[in-house]
């Protein structure tokens, strides 16, 4: 049989080979046959034994079968692989479909007749590809959504460092449903977040709107300004949903409104500062009115300055100041009564000093503008002044009582009121002593005058300090008046010690009359003295009135200098006052008196009016000395006014012998120069 037989068997099987395969098989059969034939030939040639030939043929058969078997196994294996593949594919497909929850588009034909395996496989592969693809897509979708969710979560839980790895995907469920769920979650989260933001924005807006309203209220903002922000403030009560205006919850808009609030708050701060300053001023006014010193609180000052920077709470400061104001008002109330009394006391003191001034005014009895008013005032003032001591006492005791009760000193503009009262009392006492002393002096003077009268039968001639220069150099122009007509030396001046005396030269005060155009106006002088009513005022403010000849009172101490010779004769006889000094002592006393003495004496005057008036004129001349020159003396001693006695008599009788030195006045510079010389000479 052999191979050929085998082959024929194969051929004879049911398997249908296609023609080419049949041809091949046939060819193989042919070739095998030819090869076998060849083999036989060779064997024949060789002379192979049959056993050997059998063995080789068997071998040949075996080998051939081996090969065939191998091929069959291969094919088997192939078939198995295919089956496996198909099974895998089917499984995979099923899985995917189950996961995805859907079937492939190209539905697997449910062909009862199994086609070949390769067909099957071929059929399933695209499906599976498709599903794989869809699965990937789906997965991506999931990933997207889950990423989003993760982002949102990250945003919410910002600092938590949440998972940065991929979100977990449930492979088992990739269904649309699941995807939809995820998407829904995501949307939900988003919504929540947005709602949260909206809520924040809304809350901010509310907050800002509230602030706006508060500030407008506080500062009375005009309605036009408020209108701009109307839409914000009217929505105050609305919830987020109700805010329908576009962009109202946008960051920009909120910032815009916030800016307005800031602006208003700055305004408020500055106004607060104003308010605080106003209150502070109020406090100061109240303190001033009640004569309390408002203690300068430097801490408060710096606090006020810091208001604008916001470092200091203006409202708190305001409160502090209000408290202080309340306290001071209370204090003021308790001080009220005493302060009223103090006002009264001070008014009385003013009247007192006015009265003193008034009493010094010699012209006060002149009829003139306001004289009667002044008289009335003086009367009232006197009454008031009499009440003063009692007033002071009452006030002092009240103050003391107050101090005891309150436990603190009663201050008036920073000074203890009791000290003020004390000083005043002391001053008054001193003045009183002074006045008494002057009164005593005057009395003494009166007595001496009386003595003098008894002695000489007339009043002594006026004392006057003069520049006595015996040489004629004096008589340059002005001095001519002083030429002694009778050759007698002129004057007595009271002896003084230290101070330079402002020796008055005989003169009339009137500027007009003082002016001598020529030397021979001496005669005219008296007349002009009479007639010229005007007098240059050298006292600011006091009106000067013409002295009526009848008036005897000298305004200021004057030495009645007798310019005119007593005898109505020679005009050149402007003798020095026939002033005879009564006595040196008397003059001395005069000079020591620092008060204004009433001029006692013109009554014994019998001379004709013109002389009186000239005497009056002369009365005005400045007179004696003994006054500390730098300070303005309140009064100057008044020398006695003396009657003009027949000149020669008096003059010869009474002229004292005084050294010239005593009468010489010196300026400050001369004295200083002397001192310098003295020093120098030493």
């Amino acid at each position, binding site marked *: 049989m052999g191979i050929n037989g085998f082959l024929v068997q194969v051929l004879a099987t049911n398997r249908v080979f296609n023609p080419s395969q049949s041809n091949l098989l046939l060819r193989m059969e042919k070739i095998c046959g030819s090869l076998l034939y060849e083999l036989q030939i060779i064997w024949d040639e060789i002379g192979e034994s049959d056993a050997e030939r059998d063995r080789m043929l068997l071998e040949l058969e075996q080998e051939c079968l081996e090969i065939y078997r191998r091929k069959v196994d291969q094919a088997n294996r192939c078939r198995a692989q295919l089956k496996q593949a198909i099974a895998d594919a089917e499984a995979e497909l099923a899985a995917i479909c189950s996961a995805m929850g859907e079937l492939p588009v190209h539905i697997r034909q449910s062909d009862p007749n199994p086609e070949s395996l390769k067909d099957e496989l071929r059929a399933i592969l695209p499906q599976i590809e498709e599903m794989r693809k869809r699965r990937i897509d789906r997965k991506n979708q999931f990933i997207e959504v889950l990423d989003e969710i993760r982002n949102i979560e990250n945003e919410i839980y910002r600092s938590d460092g949440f998972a940065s790895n991929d979100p977990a995907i449930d492979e088992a469920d990739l269904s649309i449903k699941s995807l939809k769920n995820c998407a829904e979650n995501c949307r939900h989260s988003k919504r929540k977040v947005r709602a949260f933001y909206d809520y924040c924005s809304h809350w901010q807006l509310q907050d800002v709107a509230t602030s706006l309203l508060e500030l407008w209220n506080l500062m009375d903002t005009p309605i036009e300004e408020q209108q701009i922000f109307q839409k914000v403030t009217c929505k105050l009560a609305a919830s987020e949903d109700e805010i329908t205006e576009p962009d109202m919850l946008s960051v920009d808009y909120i910032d815009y409104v916030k800016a307005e609030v800031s602006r208003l708050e700055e305004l408020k701060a500055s106004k607060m500062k104003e308010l605080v300053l106003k209150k502070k001023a109020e406090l100061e006014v109240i303190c001033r009115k009640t004569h309390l010193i408002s203690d300068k609180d430097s801490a408060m000052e710096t606090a006020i300055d810091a208001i604008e920077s916001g470092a200091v709470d203006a409202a708190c400061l305001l409160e502090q100041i209000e408290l202080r104001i309340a306290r001071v008002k209370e204090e003021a109330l308790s001080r009220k009564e005493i302060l009223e009394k103090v006002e009264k006391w001070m008014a009385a003191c003013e009247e007192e000093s006015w009265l003193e001034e008034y009493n010094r005014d010699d012209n006060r009895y002149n009829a003139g*503008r*306001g004289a009667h*008013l*002044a008289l009335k*005032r003086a009367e009232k003032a006197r009454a008031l002044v009499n009440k003063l001591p009692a007033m002071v006492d009452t006030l002092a005791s009240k103050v003391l009582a107050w101090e005891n009760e309150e436990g603190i000193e009663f201050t008036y503009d920073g000074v203890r009121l009791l000290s003020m009262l004390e000083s005043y009392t002391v001053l008054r006492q001193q003045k009183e002593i002074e006045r008494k002393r002057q009164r005593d002096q005057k009395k003494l003077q009166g007595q001496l005058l009386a003595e003098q009268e008894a002695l000489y039968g007339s009043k002594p001639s006026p004392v006057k300090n003069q*520049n006595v220069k015996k040489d004629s*150099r*004096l*008589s*340059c*122009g*002005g*001095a001519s008046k002083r030429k002694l007509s009778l050759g007698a030396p002129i004057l007595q001046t009271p002896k003084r010690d*230290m101070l*330079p*005396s*402002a*020796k*008055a*030269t005989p*003169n009339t*005060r*009137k*500027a*007009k009359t*003082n*002016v*001598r*155009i020529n*030397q021979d106006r001496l005669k005219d002088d008296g007349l002009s003295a009479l007639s010229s009513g*005007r*007098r*240059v*005022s*050298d006292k*600011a*403010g006091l*009106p000067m009135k013409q002295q009526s000849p009848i008036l005897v009172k000298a305004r*200021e101490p*004057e030495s009645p200098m007798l310019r005119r010779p007593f005898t109505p004769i020679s005009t050149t006889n402007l003798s020095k006052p026939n002033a005879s000094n009564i006595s040196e002592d008397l003059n001395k006393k005069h000079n020591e008196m620092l008060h204004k003495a009433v001029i006692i004496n013109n009554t014994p005057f019998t001379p004709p009016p013109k002389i009186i008036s000239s005497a009056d004129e002369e009365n005005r*001349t*400045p*007179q004696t000395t003994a006054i*500390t*020159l*730098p*300070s*303005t003396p309140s009064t*100057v001693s008044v020398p006695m006014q003396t009657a003009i006695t027949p000149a020669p008599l008096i003059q010869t009788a009474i002229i004292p012998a005084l050294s010239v030195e005593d009468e010489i*006045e*010196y*300026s*400050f*510079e*001369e*004295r*200083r*120069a002397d*001192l*310098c010389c003295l020093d120098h000479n030493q």
Partner: protein
Amino acid sequence: MTAAPPPSTGRELSNPPTDGISNLRFSNHSDHLLVSSWDKSVRLYDASANALRGEFMHGGAVLDCCFHDDSSGFSASADHTVRRLVFNYNREDILGRHDAPVRCIEYSYATGQVITGSWDKTLKCWDPRGASAQERSLVGTYAQPERVYSMSLVGNRLVVATAGRHVNVYDLRNMSQPEQRRESSLKYQTRCVRCYPNGTGYALSSVEGRVAMEFFDLSEAGQSKNYGTFATGGCDGYVNVWDGNNKKRLYQYAKYPTSVAALSFSRDGRLLAVASSYTYEEGDKPHEPDAIFVRSVNEVEVKPKPKMLPNPAT
């Protein structure tokens, strides 16, 4: 210079004299200040720069000084001399002498002469031009009733105040005799006399502390007067500015350490120099150091206030 504002008394000049100040004057041409002193010196200051520009020593206390122009001046000394001082060359020469200390000195631009008043009871006029020999510079000697205490010039008029309260008014063109012989209308010793810049009269002050306003022309005396404002300095240490019309004080500057010995306004009225220097009004006693203050003058301090109606009650 610090940025601190000057004290209320004004800026104190450096290098003041070492003894009392008898007078100080601003120049008519600049802010130079000439100061005469009892320390026997005359000093020239640049008040704006606060610098001492020159110093001239004398044989005795210098009682007065005045400018000729910005380059020279004159001095009156207790050593009886009248000197001319040339600033730039720091040279001086003696113009003449009196028989007693020379108390006052003025230079008259109108006549070109120097006029001096002395305690020897004379006025002397000197011609400073050219002549170096003393004899040739003396133009005239005019006797006064008493020792000359103060003098002032305006235009062609010279007012001389002496002891004994005499006041002589001269016309410089005719010095043979006074144009007017007057007496002070104040009771006390004359301290100072100054003519009004408008030439209508003079102000006269006494040691009592009063000031009298006088007119040259008596017919004007009765008319409405324009006294203008003027400043006075007293031994109380105060400088007051007065409104002569209203007879009111306009302003009082802060108190100076001691007596105000002299005052001078600068040529433009912008500055006021104050000599704070004890004037021996109370004899020899310890006193504050002598100082010169230069302060600026504000218009508000010296402008007269509108006249107020008199109050009948006062």
